[in-house]
């Protein structure tokens, strides 16, 4: 049964949390022993994980730069987690000093942390909402305000859709978001993938099963389908390091080791 809006969510610090585990992979200390234990377990099975997370973070940085350079100054970062460094507003403001960002996460700790570090930034807002309750998310005042003027908005679903298990549900979420976006908007999306390292997929999903956010890896085809209604920006849905690298020569010769896939779509 869905939790009614007026019943608060719990904070269970005894369970690993995706946002804090991610922070640990990235070399941060915004995490607890329970998170680190899970991360270390995962890294034992798959030592490349920190690199993959860094590659994901680098993709977000490049994709944000790309849309910011293209003039987008409004961002909706859903599943923003704990943005230790390279937060979207920092990257975007290099091109658009007026960039506004609404960060959304469902983990109360991540939300509280984001609020603490963004307290003095008038152009950034933090919302605690669940992506799966898309209507509720879109009806939050901060989000409504972001969308209201009808200017293009970049929706960022960075390493978050793989926490939506059901394919139908993920399609519905994306359709609902697409409907709400003004024309010229963009979708920045990265997703854990079955391609590249199918041998690792099973055990990795098993690990996440113990967290409040189980993880579902998907194929390139399934990930591409998430861009339905958007025009995919070149080079389409590719391995993380392959998406518009700063310097083509520095791309790792084995991009498939960075199993995540990513892409950017534009709404005409």
């Amino acid at each position, binding site marked *: 049964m869905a939790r009614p809006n007026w019943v*608060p*969510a719990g904070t269970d610090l005894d369970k690993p949390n995706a946002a804090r585990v991610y922070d640990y992979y990235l070399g941060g*200390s915004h995490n607890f022993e329970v998170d680190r234990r899970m991360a270390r377990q995962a890294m034992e099975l798959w030592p490349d994980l920190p690199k993959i997370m860094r*590659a994901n973070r680098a993709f977000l940085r490049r994709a944000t730069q790309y849309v910011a350079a293209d003039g987008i100054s409004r961002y909706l970062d859903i599943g923003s987690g704990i943005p230790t460094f390279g937060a979207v507003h920092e990257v975007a403001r290099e091109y658009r000093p007026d960039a506004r960002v609404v960060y959304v996460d469902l983990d109360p700790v991540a939300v509280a*942390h984001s609020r*603490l570090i963004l307290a003095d930034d008038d152009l950034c807002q933090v919302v605690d909402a669940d992506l799966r309750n898309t209507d509720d998310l879109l009806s939050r005042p901060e989000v409504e305000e972001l969308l209201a003027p009808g200017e293009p908005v970049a929706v960022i679903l960075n390493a978050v859709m793989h926490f939506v298990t059901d394919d139908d549900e993920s399609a519905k979420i994306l359709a609902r978001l697409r409907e709400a976006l003004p024309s010229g908007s963009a979708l920045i999306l990265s997703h854990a993938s079955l391609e590249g390292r199918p041998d690792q997929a099973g055990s990795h999903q098993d690990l996440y099963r113990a967290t409040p956010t189980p993880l579902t890896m998907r194929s390139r085809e399934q990930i591409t389908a998430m861009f339905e209604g958007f025009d995919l920006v070149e080079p389409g849905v590719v391995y993380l390091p392959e998406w518009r690298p700063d310097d083509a020569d520095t791309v790792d010769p084995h991009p498939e080791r960075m199993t995540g896939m990513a892409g950017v779509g534009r709404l005409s």
Partner: protein
Amino acid sequence: MTEAAAPDHGFRTAWAAMLRTGHGAAVRPGVLNPLIARTADLLHRAAEEHPFRPELAGQVGALLIDNHFTDPQLLSDAVQLIQTRPVPDGRGPALSGAFAAGWAAALRERTLREQEAIRLAADTARQEVERALRVSEARFRALFESSAIGIGIGDTDGNILAVNRALGEIFGGGPEDMQGVRVNDLMHPEDTPGVWEAYEELIGGTREYFQFDKPYYRRDGEVVWTHLTVSLIRDDDGSPLYQVAMLEDVTDRYRLQERLRHQATHDPLTGLPNRAAFFERLERLFESPEPDARFGLCYVDLDGFKVVNDSLGHDMGDQLLTVVARRLESALSPLGHMVARLGGDEFVVLLENCRGEQEAVAAAKTVLAALTRPVVIGDHRLAVGASVGVLERRISSTTPGAAVRAADLTLYRAKEAGRGRWTLFDPKENARAVSRYAVSVRMPAALDRGEFFIDYQPMIDLSSGAMTGVEALVRWRDPQLGVLSPEEFVGVAEETGLIMPLGRWVLEQACEQAADWVARFGDRAPKVSVNLAVRQARNAGLVGDIDRILRSTGLDPSMLQLEITESTVVGPEDEALKALHALVDMGVSLAVDDFGTGWSNLAYLRDLPVSNLKIAGSFVGDLHDPAKDTHLGWRIVSGLVSLAHTLGLSVTAEGVESRADAERLRLMGCDLAQGWHFGRPVRPAEIARRIAEGDPDRTAELPAETGPGGVERRHAPLDAAPAARQLPVPGPDFADEPEIAPSAGPESAPGIGPESAPGTDREA
């Protein structure tokens, strides 16, 4: 950068490449590029400047940490790279050491800072949650305490743990009075079956919730009715933990429902269950019967109740019914039978789980016995009897509706058989009666819906061969029964009284039609002959009705003939006789229909103001019956013709089917004839066509006969006419309705009359 750019160019390139890979890839260029330049400069100064300031290398370590270069692999790479740079006066180790120490110290600071930040975030989040929980709990508490609905929480062992004020009030006390009460203490004898089973399932974890209307005893002993919903609450592992009951006091609503239900299901006069209650009980009996379960019905109707009501007044009638009801109730209820009042003076006894016919008959006898003693009301001793129709069947063999109808029809037979008795259901009798029943229930609406229509059968002047008259014959096209001939409904119409409006309607239609023909064809228009039922003839309004109809249609009275039967007038003092005289005075002519089929009193015949005798079709029909003496048959017909002529009456022969018969009848002086030979009953338009074409002398022109009673013969008159003109004749619809075969009406009372040709049923 400007100082000694050349000597450490290689180092700078390697330093920049190191910082651009790994974590550096995620750092935006606007940050990364200045960082690379800054740290390379600081390292250069630390290596080259005098005096040696190792803390500059320490700053480089700290800057890297500040920009999240926290990977220990980076420290290793950086130290190795710094070692490769040529350094003056042996500063190398100190430089590397200072860099590593600066990096480590900054990392420690950063780690502690981040740990503090995440702790703070976690605390903030937890406080937020706790605050929200407190608010939420306060809401719940308010909801619980001030709810108008009674709420109680119990454990799965049935101990009541907490109740709110509203629940206490429902039980007539405060919440504290429910302390120590167990759920199982709250049973009530009127509990809906299944409620406690549902409860056991719920606390056993196999059911999530249930809802019932449930009565409870209040503390003061009164009963309170509640609408109860109980839900199961499970713990995180799914094991049953609590039960939550919500109770709404619906006593007022329940009482009102009970009262309305009693009113709806009981007869206010006698207090017996009413028709609705009876049918509800009967239908429930039929819902899921045991394969061999039987039931019985005694359909009771008081004999002579109408007399009591009419002569002593409704009050007396009501009191009589009350006494009868009480007697039936006290005689039959102890046997376990239900007694209900269906309405008026009709009662019914329902025997559930009947053991056989004998038991049902015994119940019927009990009914009759209970009513043997006279009923004393005031000064009156009323001898009241009853007739009972008894039906005893296997439940699976019938339906509630059919059973009640059958019992009613059986009662009708008991009445016919002479009252004060019971009659047992007879399937054959029932089938016959059912069709009459079907006709009687449908007929009243049929007249309103215009389902009746009139066909006309030609009557031919035998001497001239001209069509001088037509007989109006009413038909009924019932949507379900098909086209019915008069035999099939006139009898019922007489019984139900519907003959009055129907007869009037036929007269109006026929006169209007005849007037139309007169207007169109003048002298060639035929006289119209209409059957008059006994009841019509005895109706005081008859003369006035006919006068009005003649006036309104403008038909000359001489163009109307009324056909009556021998039984219409039973004696010289008969009221009907006056009416008939009045009609003849008006100019209308009268004919005796079906002459020779009844017990004709020739003396009365002389007094009747009739001008025409119609010899029943059976006389002519018998002439072709091989089992009967043809010669004698002709002599009888001849005798009837002479008799009529002796009395000064003209004679019409009915049922004439062949040219030979027609010719012989003409030769013996018969005036008029009708029958298949001259044309069967047809739509008015066909009559009009025949008038317009000039009706040929059928006796001369028609083709020779093929034989007695043959199909060809029957169709002969129409074979001469274009096929298209046969269409309006009522078709074979009736044959498609085998399930209800209307039985013939009473033979002696044709009323509006069968057509004067052999059997309409043959046509059907």
